């Protein structure tokens, strides 16, 4: 267990407002990921990080940005939330071997 905590766990916001989701891990893992889960789409990668200040885009990165200023924290920001970003967001992490993904509990975001 990578000891991954996500906050907030639930959030309701309005279209056009900024939103930041936080992922915190306690195992000093190098790689961290943000996924979104929608009905009929499984889990899709938004952004990932392979070290402090090192990030890259996933398959659904439009409208999202990330930051990783410390090993333990990976932030996902929606600069101006839209209804299409209503989803459940999962953070995950792996160690240097990048073998086994461990997930946080998820953050449910509703954009009205």
């Amino acid at each position: 267990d990578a000891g991954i905590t996500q906050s907030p766990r639930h959030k309701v916001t309005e279209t056009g407002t900024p939103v930041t989701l936080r992922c915190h891990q306690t195992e000093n893992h190098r790689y961290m990921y943000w996924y979104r889960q929608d009905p009929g789409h499984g889990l899709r990668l938004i952004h990932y990080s392979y070290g402090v200040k090192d990030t890259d885009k996933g398959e659904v990165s439009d409208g999202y940005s990330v930051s990783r200023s410390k090993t333990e924290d990976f932030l996902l920001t929606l600069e101006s939330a839209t209804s299409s970003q209503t989803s459940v967001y999962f953070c995950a992490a792996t160690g240097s071997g990048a073998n086994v993904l461990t997930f946080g509990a998820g953050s449910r975001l509703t954009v009205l």
Partner: protein
Amino acid sequence: GIQVEQSPPDLILQEGANSTLRCNFSDSVNNLQWFHQNPWGQLINLFYIPSGTKQNGRLSATTVATERYSLLYISSSQTTDSGVYFCAVKGTNAGKSTFGDGTTLTVKP
């Protein structure tokens, strides 16, 4: 990118029955994992199995990398096995994993 297909999309079983879930992928992989998402949404890693066979209690998995598929076997199913099972693969030239759309398993008492 690599394509991942899981079958069947939905499966309904009586408690005690056995089942086989399949994951097909379109390219060579160096990482394959099976996950269970329980009805509360929690994602749990079941197996890391880029090749070969592993067993953990009533669950076992086999990956035949040369033929680009993996199988997850559930024996003597229990109601607590209900949920969605995901396969995730990482291609040999990829830096991140791609998930299939999952198999939704319902085990009835």
